[in-house]
């Protein structure tokens, strides 16, 4: 059989979950991570990251809106997906996740964004004209009250929602980890560490994407990048990455030490079919290198330009590494036979419903949506003086 090495159960040769199912935890991970970064300011009062607060929320929303799309495109019958809300099977993590997603989208993210932007929305509904006036008007949901008292209530409510939002964000991505981690049939997936590893890698990717977007947008608008903000974000990225890396190493060391039934088969797989994506891309390029780069910035003193460049490099490598991690979990988990006697290959289509092109479009789509959101709900103060750079680039 082409692409098969050794023995696979006959129905196992074809992979069930494609690159779209790799993309899905990547997108929801960015959501959870971006939200946690936003909550750093709101709940934990880390003032330094305030410039990215609104951007982080909008990023989370943009990605959360796109997240169901890879799932819908993957389903054999997407027209029946409403059944998950109508007759959810309570023992199924996938079914329960539908509600977690809905809760998080409506009761946390949309509500928090609305509360934080409410004053601006009301102002813009009164100051703009044409279709924009209509849009902002609709967004006010009928309330034009922007008195001191009302805004204080907004502030308090927003704080409360963020407090609820943090465990909700944990639940959102932890659940995705549980969807994999609870499958006893698959030893590559089945571990209680899976939700935790997914969550921390989500936080890493979310923090990295907000940091990169902030730097990109400020550069595009020819504004000064608040280095105190970016330095703080990079520090949090570093700490979170250490935890994430430790968890992944713990899983690895544990597997190697216990050397259970599946170990030889999985070990062989990692050293052959998964070598490039796992060892090279995920571990060396995507984890060890960014951690080392960030560690350098913590230990040594670099000037602003150097720090910016290191952060951009580390951020990009991080995102690649976290995507590779999702790939290695999802695709890797299907490359080996449950008989532990063989391996198959993933044949990814190019221009197919679940192909590479679709994955690329779905990855770019949130940035498109974010662009619209940023135009509609600017995450920065209306009046900004551009401060001349003390260190010209």
């Amino acid at each position, binding site marked *: 059989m082409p692409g098969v090495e050794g*023995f*696979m*159960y*006959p*129905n*196992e040769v*074809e992979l*069930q*979950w494609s690159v779209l199912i790799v993309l899905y935890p990547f997108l929801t991970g960015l959501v959870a991570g971006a939200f946690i970064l936003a909550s750093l300011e709101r709940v934990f009062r880390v003032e330094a990251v305030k410039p990215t607060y609104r951007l982080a929320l909008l990023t989370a929303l943009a990605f959360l809106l796109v997240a169901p799309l890879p799932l819908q495109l*993957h*389903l*054999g*019958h*997407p027209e*029946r*997906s409403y*059944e*998950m809300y*109508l*007759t*959810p*099977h309570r*023992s*199924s*993590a*996938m*079914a329960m996740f*539908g509600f977690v997603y809905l809760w998080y989208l409506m009761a946390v993210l949309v509500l928090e964004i609305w509360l934080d932007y409410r004053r601006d929305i009301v102002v813009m509904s009164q100051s703009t004209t044409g279709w924009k006036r209509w849009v902002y008007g609709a967004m006010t949901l009928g309330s034009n009250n922007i008195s001191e008292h009302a805004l204080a209530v907004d502030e308090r409510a927003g704080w409360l929602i963020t407090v609820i939002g943090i465990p909700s964000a944990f639940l959102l991505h932890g659940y995705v980890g549980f*969807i994999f981690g*609870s*499958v*006893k*049939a*698959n030893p590559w997936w089945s571990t209680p560490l899976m939700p935790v590893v997914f969550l921390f890698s989500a936080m890493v990717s979310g923090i990295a994407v907000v940091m990169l977007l902030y730097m990109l947008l400020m550069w595009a608008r020819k504004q000064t990048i608040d280095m105190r903000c970016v330095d703080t974000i990079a520090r949090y990225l570093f700490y979170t990455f250490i935890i994430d890396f430790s968890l992944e190493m713990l899983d690895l060391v544990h597997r190697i030490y216990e050397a259970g039934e599946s170990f030889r088969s999985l070990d062989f797989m990692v050293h052959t079919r998964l070598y490039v994506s796992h060892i090279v891309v995920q571990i060396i390029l995507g984890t060890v290198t960014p951690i080392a780069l960030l560690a350098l910035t913590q230990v040594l003193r670099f000037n602003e330009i150097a720090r910016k460049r290191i952060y951009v490099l580390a951020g990009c490598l991080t995102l690649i590494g976290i995507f590779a991690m999702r790939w290695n979990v999802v695709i890797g988990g*299907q490359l080996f*036979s*449950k*008989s*532990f*006697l063989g391996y198959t290959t993933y044949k990814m289509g190019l221009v197919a419903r679940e192909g590479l092109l679709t994955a690329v479009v779905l990855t770019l789509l949130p940035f498109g949506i974010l662009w619209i959101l940023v135009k509609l709900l600017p995450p920065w103060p209306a009046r900004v003086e551009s401060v001349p750079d003390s260190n010209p680039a």
Partner: protein
Amino acid sequence: MNITRRHMLLLLPAAAVAWEHVLAGNPESSPNYKVTEHWWGMLIDIPKCIGCGNCVRACQQENDVPDGYFRTWVERYHVSGDNIETPEVDSPDGGKNGFSPAKEESGKNFFVPKLCNHCAESPCTQVCPVGATFVSPDGVVLVDKEYCLGCRYCVQACPYGCRFINPKTNTAEKCTLCYHRITKGLTTACCEACPTGARQLADLRNPKDPIHEFLRTHSVQVLKPYMATHAKVYYNDLDGSVR
């Protein structure tokens, strides 16, 4: 064939009874079938399996199984010496056209037919998000193809690799224990076609079913017992090397 009137008098009542069982042109389940009276399983007698592939072919014919996918299949094991950790296994086209002679080597060689184990604690039904796959009251794990989303979670959750997605219906599919036959008093297609009696349908709730005596007097295993799926396909004399 020379049928006399006497033959006809004997044959006709028998044929009439059998006719009711067939109902080939009139598909409806037998009104006498009560789900609570049955708890289905299967017995597979390894020493009797000759790897002819009749079961795989019969299943495909009975259930319109698409080529390249298998509701049941046969694996051939070659265990050399004391190395039961790494047997050599093959299943050319699921064993549908039998097996070509292997090299004669020392060690054990045998066939293992496999199918859905109709687990009483089935992990595939646990993960279905909408209730499209379920354990019937008579112990058969079935898929409601009008309700299935095709999310493939059940395929991932099955430890035995018995599920697949039918490319025509885009829904999950697997062995139904020929539910449409057993509810009419017939046996499954694979058991009907097996020439040696290696596969036998078993009704665990029927006190007269030979399975009870068999389980008492033979060394019987299930596949992957550590998965605690409470599989109901019992294997006689299953070697420790079988995955």
